[in-house]
């Protein structure tokens, strides 16, 4: 094989100061979520599962339940469960596939890469909420035509709370990924640990009060119902601090310090 060589002279440029803009890094991180087979299929599965929720509602739910609100609420379920896995892979793949070597060679300021990953996670959570809204609207039109209720009334709080929950869980996934830096381990821990805590909280009486504040599965249930109270938000806040902020903080600290090889 022969190759044509360019003729310009390589020389160190003087404008070495400007770092790579965060917007560009976020675009790169968003693209990385979907440009591998694993990521792309995860997104396709989430999309199909969300369509599936509408199909189930239209096929089997009572006519009265076939409303925009009902379709939206049920439709948020697949992405709430699966989008965090995308967040986990975003962090862990850099190390398990060793792309951190390229990523941090091109952007030595690792904190900027982490911020871009968090931003990409939040954007994908927002996008999935918007997509779910659109899908629920289409399904609701069908419901109306097929004899279901088809009502359009939805409490605004439900949309915001649903969005907050998506963002929360994606950030939790990113936190677990950054903390463990190992895909299978992080995915298992992400699903198993909160569930183990839920089971413990239900079995052991002494833990019951604490569970109301610490168990993220329990506290976020309120986010699926309209007009959350201050107390409910406080409980979400406390559990999120434990399950989202702590892993995220420790994980970022780990990624910033870890030697890349």
């Amino acid at each position, binding site marked *: *094989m022969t190759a044509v060589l360019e003729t310009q002279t390589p020389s160190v440029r003087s404008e070495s100061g400007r*770092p790579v803009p965060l917007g560009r890094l976020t675009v790169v991180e968003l693209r990385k979520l979907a440009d591998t087979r694993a990521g792309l299929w995860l997104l396709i599965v989430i999309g199909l599962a969300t369509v599936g929720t509408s199909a189930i509602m239209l096929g089997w739910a009572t006519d009265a339940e076939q409303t925009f609100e009902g379709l939206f609420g049920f439709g948020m379920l697949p992405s709430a469960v699966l989008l965090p896995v995308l967040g986990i892979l975003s962090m862990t793949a850099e190390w398990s596939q060793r792309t951190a070597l*390229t990523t941090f060679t091109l952007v030595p300021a690792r904190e900027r890469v982490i911020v871009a990953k968090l931003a990409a996670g939040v954007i994908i959570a927002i996008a999935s909420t918007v997509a779910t809204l659109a899908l629920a609207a289409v399904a609701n039109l069908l419901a109306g035509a097929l004899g279901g209720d088809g009502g359009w009334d939805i409490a605004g709080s439900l949309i915001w709370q649903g969005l907050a929950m998506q963002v929360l869980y994606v950030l939790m996934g990113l936190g677990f990924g950054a903390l463990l830096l190992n895909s299978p381990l992080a995915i298992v821990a992400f699903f198993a640990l909160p569930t183990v805590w839920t089971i413990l909280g239900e079995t052991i009486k002494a833990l019951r009060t604490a569970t109301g504040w610490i168990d993220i599965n329990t506290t976020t249930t309120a986010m699926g119902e309209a007009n959350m109270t201050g107390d409910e938000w406080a409980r979400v806040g406390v559990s999120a601090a434990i399950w989202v902020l702590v892993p995220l903080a420790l994980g970022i600290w780990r990624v910033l310090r870890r030697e890349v090889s």
Partner: protein
Amino acid sequence: MITVERLTKRYGGHPAVDDVSFTCEPGTVTGFLGPNGAGKSTTMRMICGLTPPTTGSATVGGTPYRRLGNPGRHVGVLLDASAQHSGRTGREVLSLAAITMGIDTREVPKALDRVGLNAVAGKRRVKAYSLGMRQRLGLALALLGDPAVLILDEPANGLDPEGIYWMRGLLRDFADRGGTVLLSSHLLREVEAVADRLVVIGAGKVVAQGDKAELLAQTGTLVRAADPAALALMLERAGLTGTRTTDGGVVVPTGSEVIGRAAADAGLVLLELRPAGSGGLEQMFLTLTAGDSVKEAVR
């Protein structure tokens, strides 16, 4: 220009890199030689800011790597061709890097073409790439930002002879146009063909460095006699210690005249008497670094 000043890296108590200093000038190719586990990769990772040094410092073009705002536009780095996501296509790997560096992604096909990867190869996932193709992809990545400095760790690994020849031409041309190249290898022959300067490292320490021609000139005299036993005896009497080469010759760290006179005095028939050149460098390389490769550390 790359400047490495007294770089040291310790893991536990064990020094992986011990007080390493050297510079790479624009317009030259510097060969970074050493057996596996000698500390080449650790040194290169420290230059690129991926591994924090225990002590010492390194700069590229006068700036520490981590302070380069958009380093891809200044330094092309290939540390490990296998460190790519196996599920991404070659083209996508370059596209991500192009966006990061702020380069038009339309440059990507050209970059692939430059290293001999065609459009079909670009659309394949890295999983399907041979090591040689991964090295080419890694070189394309390193060259993408049109850098002035190249830092390449064992880039010839997995390339076929034709590929190695091609890469030499590419690096030579890059340096001739004023670029700086630092290139590591554990094979002397591979580096000798393209490097202007050599830095030899063993057990974390620099054991020799300088102009390739100078180093080759300093490596002693190769002598071969009709009677090897008599030659050994003669050298011993003259107080000279030689190292035996694999083909029956002896490399002696002295000039040819000293040996010639001693041989004449002893009435010894010599079959060969010449500067040892790269054979001597190889002997030195093996002697200085003997035993290190078997102790290669697993981290």
